């Protein structure tokens, strides 16, 4: 095969059995890889009602057709499983070096099934794999694990692992690879922990073939020189300030969620901005494999009580650990972010869950005794302590480890959880960007910005500027963004490329890489197919249209200040139109004709 390798590794941890399977080329063509292909396999093999943390759930780590090739920013793999946080299908993607290395080792993906009795890790090297004991690694941070495993295997091996959070089945635990890259959302780390799988170590010296090398090379060169590099976002803004260059932009639009989404303006926003990070702890920019954007931030806090080194914070993390908790101490935010990487926690859900806890505490719904510590807005020390406690499920951390929805429900006030389908929202208040609200409500993995980044047209004006305060045309835009994103994720390239390129460039790269005649229409159709398949999984899991909603605060409490003052999200104006455009019934169920058109019937 071209683009794809053509082999998949299946690992049964219950039986300790490893097998190599051929990749189904028909499925690969229809689903591209990564998020799409792995979702298809999960849908076929795991009944959607399965308990996410039981051995019957499976964890799929899949690359895409373009991963590891010279395509633009083609570093991604997806971790696909049933989520222990949302109960929906989860697909979390990550860059770094691990995904490409898996292909160089001869595999498009790994299907992990069953569960081991004792901690293990998987060692994959050039077409072979073995299960090894990880007894000596249990309890260790992702950074320690990675160093030890490279010592035990190969100095050039790439490591993916969970930290203590995943081991303790924290529902907001992530999978970390290459030390500071993470498949962050939906608690995929807890699934890995439930299987007692500490790490997957990969080393490969093989190559990836593409169908038409010259045309592929020339296409990539053109995209690099004429699209990505000259673009203000991918060529200038992201390299200079990372994603946190958004802090001041989003705050200026009055949609920078502050104090658990009570308002959209944070007075001290600049103190946690990308610009501030560049002045303080930024050492240099860093790229994932083959990426010309290099939004990664290598950061060092040289001294003081938060002394540490690592990467980030990115925009969403700076917001969640910062503004949402009222914290503007950048050293504390940066240290907490480093800890999230080391302990294996999703900083978005962690920050938002802590913000929810602070509000519960303030309102008297969470007592000093239950919390075990004082909770207040703006306390950096509290943040760092809460991060450590959550990863180990100690004290307050045992509450936070469940995510904001379960925690707030347990305390009798689910309305204070800023989440959809139990996953915490990222850093944009939808009252001032209606389209992102529709995306949050309909996202197949709950509250999330990277399923359909409506902020791009609504705030950043790319590919064209929409009025963020109205609902006009938002259903159609959201659908298109969701479909394109699903295709991008399935191909194995980074979503950030879409600031500079769109479906035509993606179709060209796929066409020359695979030798299959992908067009703009076909690429968007793949995305739509993936979206509908995820929807089918969720519906079968019992997550129905009533869950396509938003936290009551966003629907009922008008934004108190700023450009969006007085607004709530008018979800009711957008949702019926969205269902219709998707070819779904009024109950949000894909119609037979839609499934037939997409080859899902």
């Amino acid at each position: 095969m071209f683009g794809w390798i053509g082999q998949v590794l299946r690992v049964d941890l219950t039986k300790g059995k490893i097998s190599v399977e051929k990749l189904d080329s028909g499925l690969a063509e229809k689903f591209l890889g990564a998020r799409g292909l792995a979702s298809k396999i999960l849908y076929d093999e795991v009944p959607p009602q399965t308990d996410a943390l039981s051995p019957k759930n499976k964890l799929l780590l899949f690359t895409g057709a373009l991963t590891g090739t010279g395509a633009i920013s083609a570093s991604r793999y997806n971790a696909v499983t049933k989520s222990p946080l949302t109960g929906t299908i989860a697909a979390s993607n990550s860059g770094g070096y691990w995904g490409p290395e898996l292909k160089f080792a001869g595999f498009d993906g790994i299907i992990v099934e069953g569960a081991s009795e004792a901690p293990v890790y998987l060692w994959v090297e050039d077409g072979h794999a073995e299960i090894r004991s990880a007894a000596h690694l249990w309890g260790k941070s992702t950074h320690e694990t990675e160093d030890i495993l490279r010592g035990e295997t190969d100095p050039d091996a790439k490591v993916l692992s969970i930290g203590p959070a995943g081991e303790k089945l924290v529902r907001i635990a992530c999978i970390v690879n290459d030390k500071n890259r993470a498949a962050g959302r939906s608690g995929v780390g807890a699934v890995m922990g439930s299987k007692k799988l500490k790490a997957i170590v990969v080393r490969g010296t093989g190559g990836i073939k593409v169908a038409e090398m010259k045309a592929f090379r020339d296409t990539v060169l053109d995209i690099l020189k004429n699209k990505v590099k000259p673009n203000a976002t991918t060529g200038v803004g992201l390299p200079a300030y990372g994603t946190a260059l958004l802090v001041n932009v989003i705050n200026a639009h009055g949609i920078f969620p502050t104090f658990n989404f009570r308002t959209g303006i944070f007075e001290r926003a600049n103190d946690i901005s990308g610009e501030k990070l560049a002045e303080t702890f930024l050492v240099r920019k860093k790229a994932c494999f083959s990426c010309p954007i290099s939004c990664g931030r290598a950061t060092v806090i040289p001294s003081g009580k938060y002394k540490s080194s690592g990467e980030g914070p990115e925009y969403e993390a700076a917001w969640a650990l910062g503004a949402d908790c009222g914290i503007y101490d950048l050293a504390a935010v940066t240290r907490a972010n480093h800890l999230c990487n080391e302990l294996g926690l999703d900083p978005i859900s962690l920050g938002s869950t802590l913000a929810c806890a602070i509000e519960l505490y303030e309102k008297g719904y969470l007592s000093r005794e239950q919390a075990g510590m004082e909770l207040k807005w703006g306390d950096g020390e509290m943040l760092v302590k809460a991060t450590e406690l959550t990863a180990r499920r100690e004290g307050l951390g045992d509450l936070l480890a469940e995510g904001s929805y379960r925690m707030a429900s347990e305390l009798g006030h689910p309305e204070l959880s800023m989440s959809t389908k139990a996953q915490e929202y990222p850093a944009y208040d939808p009252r001032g960007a209606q389209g992102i609200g529709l995306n949050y409500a309909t996202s197949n993995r709950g509250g999330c910005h990277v399923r359909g980044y409506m902020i791009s047209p609504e705030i950043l004006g790319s590919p064209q500027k929409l009025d963020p305060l109205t609902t006009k045309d938002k259903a159609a835009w959201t659908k298109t963004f969701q479909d394109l994103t699903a295709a991008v994720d399935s191909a194995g390239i980074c979503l950030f490329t879409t600031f500079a390129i769109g479906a035509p460039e993606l179709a060209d790269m796929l066409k020359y890489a695979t030798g299959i005649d992908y067009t703009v229409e076909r690429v968007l159709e793949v995305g739509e197919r993936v979206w509908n398949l995820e929807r089918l999984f969720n519906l079968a899991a019992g997550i129905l249209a009533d869950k396509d909603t938003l936290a009551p605060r966003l629907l009922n409490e008008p934004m108190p200040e700023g450009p969006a003052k007085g607004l709530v999200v008018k979800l009711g104006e957008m949702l019926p139109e969205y269902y219709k455009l998707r070819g779904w019934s009024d109950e949000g169920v894909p119609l037979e004709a839609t499934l037939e058109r997409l080859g899902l019937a």
Partner: protein
Amino acid sequence: MEKILMINPEKCTACRRCELVCSAKHTGEFNPARSRVSVAAFLDENFYMPLVCQQCDQPVCMEICPAGAISRDEKTGAVAIEEAKCVGCRMCMLSCPFGAISYIPEEKKLVKCDLCDGEPECALFCPWNAIEYVEADQAAVAKKRQVANRLKDALKEVRV
């Protein structure tokens, strides 16, 4: 004027695109293990540097080769291995101070950077000019300027 590959480690982002395009050009596949250029990435220390043949003025590999298989390409100035003459003893690989020559066991072949016949793919694709293909004398001036800049900054810090 002869051109050389100038390496600017401070501009490298460890994306390893150079390894991809080099292997694609020379082997027809994307395979960093077969690339003539490799990025040494000390991720914990935040130091990344592309490593490639320096095309030395007095190449140790050329001197040590018992088969006389290594010579200088007159057009590009690249130190080149002539496959037909190579006996595969790997003395060049052992003696190179930069580790710039690799042995491919499957093909029983020694490979090194050949400057892509005067159009190096790595320099063309490097997103940040961490690898540049420049006139040899310009390279020296640019390097001096870099060193001077660093010294200037260091002095500034000392004086404060």
